[in-house]
């Protein structure tokens, strides 16, 4: 045993492990949560981090305070006190204040999140929203749990005596360390209340809209034909090229040259293009080749809003790639769980190309 231990060099990860694909949603170090709906459609939510949630919390604190003051003033000034003739005005105001304070303190978040689709006023302003971790809307039960447990999230309380040496204010100051630590150690930035209720906070904001790409230079099309037909771009490169093409209109020429050269220069050398080709033009040609010149194999329906009939959209396909040749290959294949989509124009979808 021991001898075999020393026979070869110890192999570390990179020698025998597959390279990590950072573009796949499983490995991406970004702030998205992938939801799969029962219709088998996958989409991503952007998760809200502490820097959106703390302002929302502070706004809510302010709103609660203002609501409390407003009710106090309204009760004191209005004739509501006359409704209870058996109580003195002073006692009525006292009762209303205490009860208002209690209900606003504990049930503000519960009420708003239940009746306003997972939003409070603070969340509405910082454009975030609470949903279940499985993507479904939040229920009254979840809203109650996550709001009741806020107290534990604000723990530990700190005395301000450490800051103000002599005249410390008489109240304890919540540090919120529990919530912050919890957010750091969970993948969806969940605080303790979120963990207990099974909720997460996502961004509800208009995403950056990719603008229409303008390829104004007439040489783009001819340059794209110079690129060898067998040259295939990787997914990450397609992404980089598309991002560049969509944003280049906002950049001055010098900046375009500088940025595009990073990707274009080594590629052009590899493809044997002339060195004095503009790197900006080259990336535009790549974009043109990928998104403009290539036809896509669909028959588009006539109206814009209906899109493609849903029967074509079955995303259940064999993604395992070519089947291994084995003795089992002679037997009949198992029946498909879902029919293969009908591909117009008689084209075949090669195995493994589907997401």
């Amino acid at each position, binding site marked *: 045993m021991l001898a075999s231990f020393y026979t070869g060099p110890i192999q570390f990860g990179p020698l025998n492990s597959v390279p990590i694909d950072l573009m796949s949603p499983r490995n991406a170090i970004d702030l998205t949560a992938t939801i799969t709906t029962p219709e088998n*459609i996958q989409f991503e939510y952007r998760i809200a981090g502490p820097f959106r949630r703390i302002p929302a919390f502070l706004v809510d604190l302010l709103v609660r305070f203002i609501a409390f003051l407003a009710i106090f003033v309204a009760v004191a000034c209005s004739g509501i006190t006359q409704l209870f003739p058996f109580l003195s005005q002073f006692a009525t105001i006292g009762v209303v204040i205490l009860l208002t304070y209690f209900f606003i*303190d504990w049930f503000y978040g519960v009420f708003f999140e239940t009746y306003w689709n997972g939003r409070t006023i603070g969340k509405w302003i910082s454009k975030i929203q609470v949903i279940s971790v499985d993507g479904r809307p939040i229920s009254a039960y979840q809203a109650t749990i996550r709001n009741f447990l806020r107290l534990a999230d604000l723990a530990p309380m700190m005395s301000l005596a450490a800051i103000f040496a002599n005249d410390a204010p008489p109240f304890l100051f919540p540090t919120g360390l529990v919530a912050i630590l919890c957010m750091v150690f969970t993948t969806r930035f969940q605080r303790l209340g979120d963990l207990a209720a099974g909720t997460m906070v996502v961004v*509800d904001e208009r995403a950056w809209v*990719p603008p*229409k790409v303008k390829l104004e230079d007439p040489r783009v099309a001819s340059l794209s034909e110079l690129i060898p037909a067998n040259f295939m771009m990787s997914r990450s490169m397609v992404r980089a090229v598309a991002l560049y093409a969509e944003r280049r209109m906002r950049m001055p020429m010098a900046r375009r040259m500088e940025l595009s050269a990073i990707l274009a220069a080594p590629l052009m050398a590899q493809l044997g293009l002339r060195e004095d080709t503009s790197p900006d033009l080259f990336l535009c040609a790549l974009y043109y080749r990928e998104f403009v010149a290539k036809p*896509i194999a669909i028959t588009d329906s006539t109206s814009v809003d209906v899109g493609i009939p849903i029967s*074509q959209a079955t995303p259940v396909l064999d993604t395992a790639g070519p089947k291994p040749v084995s003795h089992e290959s002679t037997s009949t294949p198992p029946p498909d769980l879902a029919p293969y989509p009908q591909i117009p124009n008689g084209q075949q979808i090669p195995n493994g190309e589907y997401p």
Partner: protein
Amino acid sequence: MRTVDLLERRRQGWHELDSMCDKYRNFSSLKKPTAAEVTRFAALYRAACTDLAMAENLKLPPTTLDYLHRLVGRAHSHLYRSHRLPTSLWWTYVFETMPKAVFNDPCVKITGVIFFGLFSLAALLSWAEGTFPKFGETILGKEQIQQLEGSFAKPLSGNIDQYASMAAFYIQHNTSIGLECFALGPLLIPSLFKLAYNAIVLGASFGYMARPEIAAGDTFFEFVTAHGVFELTAISLSAAAGLRLGIGWIVTNGLSRLDAFRVSAKKALPIILVAVALFILAAFTEGFISPSPLPYAVKALFAIVSASLLMFYFVILGYPSDLESNSEESVI
């Protein structure tokens, strides 16, 4: 058909969906959308979903794909909105789910033993002045004893103003303490500390006031008799709910810790709701009945009736039916 043409055709629908989402997240969403709007929204949502599902086939640029992900996510959360309170179920919840949750939860027994055990012990130690001198005085402190004796020096009387203000104060103050006990449950220690602290201080006060030489004792017991049943049970129950939450981290019953925590939160909610209801009942009793100059017999009768009602609620309504008792786990 090329990608650019497709984008050109789709873009309009996507933008319309986006602006509808914007509209519905604003205050105008309080107004119910018309049937036509809902249909249009659903059609646009389905179209965007289809585009997303076919993205690979349609050769959409990755940035457009990102945009579609966000758009579909937004539309999804507007289409499927939060559930309101299920008002049709409240009868079942209050008279079946809640008492059963309390009766079947071992945490209720544990905190019951801790609370009433510490309470009785402190009361005994504080009462037996000869055997344990200075116990009550040490626990309560001079100021608190003076305040306690002072407030019960005069016989009970009051007017409606005082009663109403006191009831409101107790609702706010005591229920908040109970909810804090629950909320600190996931951290376990603060919740148990709060429970033990309340048990010992309350017990010591009871024991001290029960000493024969304390003049204010009679008035004190006349005051606490009526609401004691509700309030002491409520304190114990709110700590039980907190303990149930905290135990979820430790006793997982084969689940992952996070899942066990989530399951225990689901079990703890009915218990804390019972506690809140009891706190509010106790506050009304403490506000209106306890300080009133009613004869002691009435107050004692109230205590007996409230205790029997609680017994009925927890034991008769909470007793598990045959089916459930078989499947119920006996482990914590």
